[in-house]
Structures are given as structure tokens and as C-alpha cells.
């Protein structure tokens, strides 16, 4: 390990070191390198001073090529003393600069100062640079039991196109276990922190390489690709679906993996693996799921309070170096927290990147699915992104929902800022889909009704069709016959009732009146019955039922006669003032016959009914 020596830039820079670009001087530089995660963050506080006479409004920041290609995020903010950093800081504009006489191995960014620096003026600002893939695992392959060692290289002197008067550097490590580090003058080590400096009066473009080789078992979670789909439903939900393709970006695992060892002592046998990831979802996130293409992944925990929702997810297997996995998490968010209205336009205000803690995303695609019928779509993002539009066809869509696609590479948690999608959407379009469903069912029922009522047979003259029609007519007639018979039976019952009244009250006149009414009614009914019977006799398709119907009519007539006889007998009996028992004795025989007949009529009715 000691034999590693990296002096790649030193020579070139020394040769190319040209006279200072301007008369700016960095009077004080404090750099802090945080290696406490696999995302390297360099935070520097710089005090810049104008030693020349011309007014300067731009400061150049230089990064060696090696670093620049890993740089994911760069921000410069005016420095504020301790204690008053409450109010939001306005970032200074930073842009890539390309001055002519600079060495090609350097990438430069220029920071615009809020106001120009006159002679002798000074200004203090902070620069935060975030790098991904900056830690190199050495050795590149480790076994399950090994710990993971990584190497970080930088310069002890601040690489700058300006001369630096006083500078210091501190490197914060995750753990106090350090394999090796470059010892220069003024190097101190405090636990897990290495301090270089202070160094004074270092000329511009000076570079003194340092390398730190240390243990880092932190999760090297890298998402190769993350597709976030944010779907807005104006019915009250923002559905977020995130498809991760994850890889452990640390030292490659070699040899065998013993689950048993891992289970028994996960911290020793599997120190380099990571078991879980934490996602900080927005508060009031609901319907959270975590699955992959073969089903639900049961190893996850969800805790929530009013400030945030914390989701802890474990991949199906512990992630060792170089292992990959893919999964999907999804959650719903309340619409009113993220969708607002201004100037007649609606806008979605939601975070851009993944809610995962300390996750590097190589390629992030954010798709915002707007409701069908949205128009005038525009996006406001806090940093440059690639963007285009698509359409997505989902539940009950006709022409699809507009989708805004944003793409960004090399994303770090610092990118997790709010962005806005503005669009026009009419409230009435919301009703489109319910109305579609309602009308769909409506027409279905209408079709059913039409089908049931319409005669849709193809040939109106075919034998079977005619037969069917005739049969229907016959059925209607039989129905009528049944009705008449039943009315006759009712009349009989009325007569019986009048007899009962008679036995109770002895009012012969009333009984006779009832008899008269019944006679009239029955006559009428038998008149009505005649044409129906003749129809049945003439109809060929009624041949099957005809005998039964005729039998029914005959039986009914017989019954009618019997009832009349009985009625007369009883009334006679009362007129002759015979005793009740006597009358009963007289009628008993008739009564038996009557009951039998009535039974037969009922049977026949039932039988015909069943046809």
C-alpha cells in the first residue's frame, strides 16, 4: 500500500504555472474534505482580496481534470458569520469559464461576486463541491470477511490560479482506522480527522499531492438508473413511483458468500456490505409499497410523524461489492401539499431527486405525468436538465396524458431541490372519465333493454318464428282464460261468504241479493269466455293445451252449478226456518263434492300455469 505514489498533475502544473491571472489574492482558505460517506464533499471558506487597482467582479475556481469529471454539484454562497445564518442564503452565480492562458488539465469555474471588489476590498464566501466516484477501493476485490479500504487523493495546497496567503485543510474520515496517509510538514491527526497546514504564502497553481487510504464500510449505494414517475390526479393524489437499478459501488466481492456466517456475525462477516437504505419521504405519504418484478419485498419498515415519513428498505439480499439489484418503491402524496395555483396556472412543486439518503444516481429520469387535457406545459428547474415530452396512455384515456420528462446525470442528494411544472387544466376535464363510465354503463343497459324488447329474428316468415308468435298469442289467451276462471272462483267465494253472513245474521234478503249479483257476473264471464275458447279451438298450436283448458272450463261450470245448488239449498233451508244442523246435514254431501271439484280446478289451473 505504501508504494502508491501519485504525482500525476504536479509536473504539468509546475511547468504551466503562468503569472497570476489578475491581481486577486486569496488571503485565507479553509478547506474541509468530508469523506464520511461515499459522496465526497469539499467545503471551502475563502477570503478573496483585490491587490490590484482594477475592479474585479469574478473569482475563478480551479479543479484538476481528475476531480472535475467526478464533480456533481458546485455552489458558492456568501460567507456568513456564525449565529446569523438563519435567513436563506442566496447562492452566487457560478458558471464554467474558459480563459485562454490556462493549463488544459484544469477546469475552471467563475464565481460572480455580488458587487465588484475595489482595490483593497475583500470578500468571504463558501464553496461546496460534491464529487461522486472519487473514492477508489484498494484493493479492488475483497472477500466477505474483509473490510473495505478506499483511497482518496487530493492536494494539500489549494489549487488556485491565485496566490494563497494562509490556508489549511482538514480531512474528516468515517472511522479512526487509517491504513496510511501522506505525511507532510504540519500534519496532525486527531482521531478520525487529519489536518494539513496551516501553510502560508503558497504561490498560485501549487499542488502537493496527498493520499489517504482508510477504512470505509459505509453503503456505497449507486443507482445506475432511477426512473421517477410522478403522476398527478386531480382527484386528490400525487402518485410517485421510483424504479431503482442499484449497485454496490465499492470493492468487488470475491470468493464465496456464506449466508450463515453473515447471519451470525453481520458486522464482521460482511462489514463491507450494506443491508438497508433509508428513504425520507414527504410527510403524509401513504400507500407505500416496495417490490420488484417478482413480487413484494417484505423487509421494510415505515415510521411516520407529522414532519416526515421514514422508510427503511432492505434489498432481498445484503449488497456486497459489485452486486446489483433492482426494485420499485411507490407512494401516494396528498395533492394539496404539492399542487398550487398562480395566475390561473396550476403548478406542481415537488422535489427533483430520490428521497434516499446518500445515494448517487448516475442517470436520473423524472417523468411528470399530467392529467389528460393539460396544456401550456412549462418546467422551471433549479439546475440545467435535459427535457422532452411524451404521452402516456393509462386508465380510461383516449388521447393519452402529457408527460414531461427531465433527465440529469450524476445526481447527488444536494440536487434534491424543488422544481416546478406549470400547466393549464380545466376543472371540467376531471369529469370526463366518470362521465365516460356512466355513459358506458348507460348504453349497455339501454342495449340490454332494446335487446329484450326488440324482435331481432332474421326471417319473419320462417315456420319456427310464426309458430313462436302463435304460441305467444295462445299463451296470452290462456292467461285471459285463467283470469276469467279465477274471477269465477272469486264469485264462488263471495257466495260462500254470503252464506256465512246468512248463518250469522239470518238476513236472507242480503244473501239473495248477493246471489243475484253473482248470477249476473257469472253470466257475463261465460260470455267473455266464449270467443277465447273458439280462438283456442281454431289455433293449431293450442292443440296441446286445448283439452286441459276445455276440461278446466267444464269443471268450472260443474263447480258453478254445484255452488248454486248448495246456495239455493241453504237459502231454502233458512227460508223454511230449518235448524242450522239440519241445513248442514243437507249440504254435507254437496260440500264434499264441492271441495273435490275445487281441488280439481286448482290442479288444472296449476297445470296450465306450468305450461
Amino acid at each position, binding site marked *: 500500500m505504501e508504494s502508491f505514489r501519485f504525482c500525476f498533475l504536479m509536473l504539468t502544473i509546475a511547468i504551466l504555472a503562468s503569472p497570476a491571472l489578475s491581481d486577486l489574492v486569496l488571503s485565507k482558505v479553509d478547506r474541509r474534505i468530508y469523506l464520511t460517506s461515499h459522496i465526497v464533499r469539499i467545503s471551502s471558506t475563502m477570503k478573496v482580496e483585490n491587490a490590484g487597482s482594477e475592479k474585479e467582479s469574478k473569482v475563478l475556481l480551479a479543479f484538476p481534470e481528475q476531480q472535475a469529471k467526478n464533480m456533481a454539484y458546485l455552489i458558492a454562497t456568501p460567507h456568513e458569520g456564525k449565529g446569523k445564518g438563519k435567513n436563506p442564503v442566496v447562492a452566487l452565480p457560478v458558471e464554467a469559464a474558459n480563459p485562454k492562458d490556462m493549463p488544459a488539465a484544469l477546469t475552471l469555474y467563475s464565481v460572480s461576486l455580488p458587487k465588484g471588489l475595489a482595490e483593497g476590498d475583500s470578500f468571504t464566501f463558501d464553496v461546496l463541491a460534491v464529487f461522486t466516484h472519487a473514492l477508489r477501493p484498494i484493493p479492488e476485490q475483497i472477500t466477505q470477511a474483509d473490510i473495505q479500504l478506499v483511497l482518496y487523493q487530493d492536494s494539500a495546497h489549494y489549487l488556485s490560479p491565485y496566490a494563497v496567503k494562509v490556508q489549511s485543510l482538514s480531512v474528516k474520515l468515517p472511522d479512526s482506522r487509517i491504513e496510511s496517509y501522506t505525511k507532510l510538514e504540519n500534519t496532525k491527526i486527531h482521531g478520525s480527522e487529519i489536518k494539513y497546514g496551516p501553510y502560508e504564502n503558497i504561490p498560485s497553481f501549487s499542488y502537493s499531492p496527498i493520499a489517504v487510504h482508510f477504512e470505509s464500510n459505509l453503503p456505497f449505494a449507486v443507482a445506475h438508473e432511477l426512473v421517477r414517475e410522478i403522476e398527478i390526479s386531480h382527484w386528490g393524489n400525487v402518485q410517485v413511483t421510483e424504479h431503482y437499478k442499484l449497485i454496490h459501488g465499492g470493492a468487488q466481492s470475491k470468493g464465496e458468500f456464506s449466508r450463515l456466517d453473515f447471519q451470525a456475525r453481520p458486522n464482521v462477516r460482511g462489514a463491507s456490505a450494506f443491508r438497508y437504505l433509508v428513504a425520507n419521504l414527504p410527510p403524509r405519504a401513504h400507500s407505500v409499497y416496495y417490490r420488484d418484478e*417478482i*413480487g413484494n419485498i417484505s423487509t421494510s419498515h415505515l415510521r411516520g410523524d407529522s414532519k416526515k415519513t421514514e422508510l427503511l428498505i432492505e434489498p*432481498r439480499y445484503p449488497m456486497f461489492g459489485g452486486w446489483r439489484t433492482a426494485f420499485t418503491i411507490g407512494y401516494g402524496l396528498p395533492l394539496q401539499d404539492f399542487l398550487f395555483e398562480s395566475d390561473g396556472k396550476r403548478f406542481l412543486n415537488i422535489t427533483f431527486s430520490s428521497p434516499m439518503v446518500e445515494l448517487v444516481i448516475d442517470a436520473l429520469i423524472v417523468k411528470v405525468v399530467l392529467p389528460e387535457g393539460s396544456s401550456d406545459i412549462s418546467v422551471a428547474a433549479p439546475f440545467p436538465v435535459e427535457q422532452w415530452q411524451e404521452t402516456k396512455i393509462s386508465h380510461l*384515456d383516449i388521447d393519452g396524458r402529457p408527460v414531461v420528462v427531465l433527465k440529469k446525470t450524476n445526481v447527488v442528494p444536494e440536487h434534491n431541490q424543488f422544481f416546478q411544472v406549470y400547466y393549464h387544466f380545466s376543472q371540467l376535464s376531471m369529469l370526463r372519465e366518470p362521465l365516460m363510465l356512466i355513459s358506458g354503463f348507460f348504453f349497455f343497459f339501454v342495449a340490454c333493454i332494446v335487446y329484450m324488447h326488440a324482435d331481432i329474428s332474421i326471417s319473419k316468415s320462417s315456420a319456427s318464428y310464426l309458430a313462436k308468435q302463435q304460441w305467444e298469442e295462445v299463451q296470452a289467451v290462456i*292467461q285471459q282464460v285463467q*283470469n276469467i276462471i279465477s274471477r269465477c272462483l272469486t264469485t264462488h*267465494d263471495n257466495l260462500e261468504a254470503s252464506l256465512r253472513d246468512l248463518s250469522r245474521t239470518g238476513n236472507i234478503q242480503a244473501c239473495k241479493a248477493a246471489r243475484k249479483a253473482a248470477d249476473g257476473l257469472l253470466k257475463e264471464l261465460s260470455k267473455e269466455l266464449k270467443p277465447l275458447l273458439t280462438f283456442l279451438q281454431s289455433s293449431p298450436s293450442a292443440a296441446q293445451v286445448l283439452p286441459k283448458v276445455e276440461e278446466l272450463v267444464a269443471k268450472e261450470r260443474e263447480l258453478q252449478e254445484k255452488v248454486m245448488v248448495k246456495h239455493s239449498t241453504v237459502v231454502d233451508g233458512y227460508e223454511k226456518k230449518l235448524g242450522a244442523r239440519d241445513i248442514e246435514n243437507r249440504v254435507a254431501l254437496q260440500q264434499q263434492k264441492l271441495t273435490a271439484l275445487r*281441488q280439481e280446478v286448482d290442479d288444472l289451473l*296449476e297445470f296450465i300455469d306450468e305450461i
Partner: protein
Amino acid sequence: MAAPETSTAAVPTLYTNNTLRNAFGGVLSFFILLLIGVMAFSIRLFSVIKYESVIHEFDPYFNYRVTQFLAKNGIYEFWNWFDDRTWYPLGRVIGGTVYPGLTLTAGTIWWLLNSLNIPLSVETVCVFTAPIFSAFASWATYLLTKEVKGTGAGLTAAALLAMVPSYISRSVAGSYDNEAVAIFALIFTFYLYIKTLNTGSLFYATLNSIAYFYMVCSWGGYTFIINLIPMHVLLCIVTGRFSSRLYIAYAPLVVLGTLLAALVPVVGFNAVMTSEHFASFLVFIIIHVVAFVYYIKGILSPKMFKVAVTLVVSVGLAVCCAVIAVLIALVASSPTKGWSGRSLSLLDPTYASKYIPIIASVSEHQPPTWPSYFMDINVLAFLVPAGIIACFLPLSDASSFVVLYIATSVYFSGVMVRLMLVLAPAACITSGIALSQAFDVFTGSIKFQLTGASSNTEVDAAETSSSTAESQTDAVKTEKPEETAKNRPSRKSKKKEREHGEKPSTEAKAEKKRLLALPLESSVHCVWAAAEAYSAPSIVLTSRSHDGLHVFDDFREAYAWLRHNTDVDDKVASWWDYGYQTTAMANRTVIVDNNTWNNTHIATVGTAMSSPERAAWEIFHSLDVKYVLVVFGGLVGYPSDDINKFLWMVRIGGGVFPHIKEPDYLVSSLC
């Protein structure tokens, strides 16, 4: 005569209410059917609620993978699909070796939904196919039983089928297997056969052939249909029930059905060449002879007919003998007598264990134990005999079919656990008939006692179906005060009286309660079985201990690891049980899988598994294997791991490679 006044009011409403009553009955039974369908669907969702919406077990994963392929590549690609992910290095022609019914069904549903812009995933459609089709199956049961014994029996049978555990075990959500749609196809084919038999309509006969075609597409169990229906036809002929309706029900089925069956690639010429189909052709000939005889009988005088019979019989016998001799010679010349191994093991239960260990090694091919009858059909087992008796009162063409169906399926279920599934619908139909008939008797008796005085109206309305009768008699009971005067007995009760003898109302009520308790108790059992016994997806295991629920998801952990961390073309060796899952979940090439078509290949893997490390390495190396998947359940106490299956590996390996001998692996020979 002291006819109560109620009757005068009730009678006129009788006939005006007639159509209304029928309509009401129709709507009521429609809603009951709808609820039965909902119940059949929802009782199968325990697996989704308790676990997750995921495909279960082994074979469903293969079907799922095929469906995915179909959804992605379309039907023509599907027919021509040569799968190189399995049976390495042989591969498998999927299009020609699967029963495509299930796949095409789910694929069609998926396609339909997606063309309506309802973007459900293939997996979701596959998971819910089985519950949907069990709702269809219960409706088909209703139709079938209705044809046999009327609406009441139909509804009862449908309700029983919706929750019979045996069927639930094969059709819970996620159990995406052929049986899921095949049981529906089976019952529906039987229904159409009975319907044709009852109506003699050529329309239904054609539909019957199409339903049979769907069944052939869906499941190898179609041979049951094509043997059972000829048996029934033969039975009808022998018992002198030949009619033109029988001819129409049978002849088109054989001709059209066989032609259609031959269209299914996996069946092809088997439809005319294997012995499984032989019975249908034989009966086809017989029915024509019989039809001819009846025809001749019609046109000849009895004397002439007698002469003709003696003539024809003497000549015909000679010809028949010759033909049968030729046939027997043909059949005998093939080693398996023209039967496939699986069919033979049905006819001779000891066949598989003697000759084909691979069939015997599958747990669902073992004969069932007695408790499993109780577990799977529960109270139905006791109702079946009553149902059979009810089928004989009176015996019709349709009810004789049910008797034949139950008799044969009881035999088959006794041979293989798996065929308990065929028994379940038959048991439901007969039990439905039994229950419904019993209810008819008891409600009749109660009504006779309670409502004899009141009019016919209520009685008849209540009689439309046994299940509707329940509520209505109760209503009648509460409405009418207890009138025990000896009144004109209602017609129906009188009929009952004639048939079954009069039963005192209290006794009948008690009996009815007891009878009601039966299906209620059994439904408790069914729900329990659905929730606890049959809902586990078997790829994810749970165990409850004192410190909460433990989930063992190790299978999917392994498959997910293989999927994401090995090369796409790597070969994975495992015992054949895990073949389907590995191809579907890990998307890696396997050596053998659950479609055990090549015994030698499986034996090779078995030999490798039971050989010492060096020899095994050589075998696997020759098969380009890079990863070996073995399941070890010792740590968590999972019983069906590879150590449990090890003896079968030895047996199957030893069946082809004689140097593997089972006694070498047994303890007794070691010490």
C-alpha cells in the same frame, strides 16, 4: 264449511301475480347467482390479502412466463416458440407441448383490458384468472344442476361449488394453473351435453363441441370427458333410453370435437390414435348401429324384423370379431398398450411406482388419505350418497349422467390426490341435489302444517325454489297465527304427503335446522381452509412465533440474486422442482424443469446430485453449468428441501444410470 276469510282475499291475487311471481323468482335467483359468483371470487382472495398478489408454486410460474411471452410477442410467435432457456442443451418447443387454453385465456383478457386502456400487468391478470373462472364454474354448475334437478338444486350446488375446499386449493388467487380454467370448461361441457340431451337441439350440440374444444385446449383431463360421455351414452343405450336426442348429443360431439381437438398442437393426431380416445369411437359405432336398428324396426313388420335381426347378428358378429381381433393386435403391439403413462397409472394405481418413478415422485400423484377427503370435500362426503339416491327418484337421462360422473370421479380421486378436483364438482352437484330435495320435503311438511288453512298462493310462491322458500315460509309463519283447524290441505303438501309421508311440523322444523347446520358448518370449514390451508403461495413462507410473524422469502432472494448478479446466459442446475421458478423468476437457463418430459436428462441431474463432488463437477461441467441451486431447510426447519427429495434423486438417477443404487444411500447399509 268454515273457510277462513283470508282465502277470499288471497285467491284473486293468484293469477294477476303469476307473471310477477315468475319475474321475482327470476330476479331473485339472478341475484343469488351473482352473490355466489362474488363469493366464489372473494373467498379466493385470502392469498392476496394475507400474502400478496403473486403467482404461486411451480407450474403457475411456467404458465405465467408463457403468458408474458404471448403478451409480448403475439400469437404466431407463441405457436412457434422454441424455448432455449430450459432443458439445456435440448430446449423445448413450447408452442407444441403446452395446453394453450389457460395462456390464451389470460392473454386475451390482458389484451382486451389493454386495448380498453386499462393498463393491468400480465401478472395481475394471471393472478386473478383463477378466481374469475371459479365464479364462472359455479355458474356453470348452476346451469348443469338446473338441467338435472331444477333451479333450487342448481343454486345449492353452485353455492357449494363456490366454496368447496378441494377446488379452492387449485384456484386461489395466484394459482395460475390449467385446472383453474379447466374445471369451468369441464362443467360447462357437461352442462351443454345435458342441455343437448334434454332439448335435442343441434345448436347446443355445436356449442358442446366448442366447449369440449376449449377443454382440450386447457387441460389433459379432457380425456375424462371423452370417456365419461361415451360411457353415459352406452349406459343409456343399454338401459333402453336411446332417443334421437341422445344421438344428437353424442354424434356431433365426437365428429366435431375430435376434429377440433386435433387442431390443438399438443394433442394433434393423438385425438384419433391413442387408446384414451378409443372408447368414444367404439360408442360412436355402436350408437349408429343402434340408431339403424331402431330405424329398421320402424319400417319393418315385427316378423320381418326378427328375420333381419338373426341375419344381421350372425354376419355382424363375425365382422365385429374380426375387427376387434385386428384392433387388439394393434394395441397389444405397442408396449404401453397405447395408453400414456399417466393414464395407465390411473387404470392401474401401482403402475407408476413400478415403472415410472418420476410420476410417482410427485406428491400430488399419490393416492389420498381418508382425512384428505374430509379436508377437501368435508360434509359433501356425507351428502353424496343421499344425492345419488335423489338422482334415482326418478332416474332421467340427466340424473343418470350425474350418477355416472360421481361414481367414476370417486374412483379417480382414490387413485390420485390431484383428481380430487374432478370429484369436487360431482360431489357438489349431488350434494346440491340432496340438500335441495331434503329442503323441499321439510318445507313442504312445515307449510302443510302451518299454512294449510291459508291459500295456495303463498305456498306456491314459496315453493319456487328451496332456498327462496326458506325466507318466505318464515314470513308466512310469522304472518299467520297458528291455525290448526283441519282445513283443505294444499295441493303441494298433499303431493309431498303422497311421496314421503306426512311429517309433524315440529319434527320437520328440527330436521330442517339440522340440515341447515350442515352447510353452515361446512362453510366455516371452507373459509378456514381457504384462509389457512390453501392460501400460502409456497414461494414465501411465514411462521408465527412468540415474537411475531416471521417471513421466509429465501426462494425469491436466491432467484433475485441470480437474476441480477449472474450473466444472462449462465446455466443454473437444480432439481427439477425449481426449474420453472428459475426460468420465470431468475430468467436463467435451467437444465431440467417441472415439465418432466425427458427422464434421462433428469436422471443425469439426479446422478450429479447423488455423486461425489468430483464426479458431479464433471457432469455439471459437461452441461455448461455455472451455478447450482440447492435448497437447504435445516436451519429454519423447512421440511421440503433438497435433502428431503434426495432419495428421489437417487431413485430417478438410478433408474437410468445403474451405478447409482438406492441401498448405498441408506443408513442401514452404512453401518
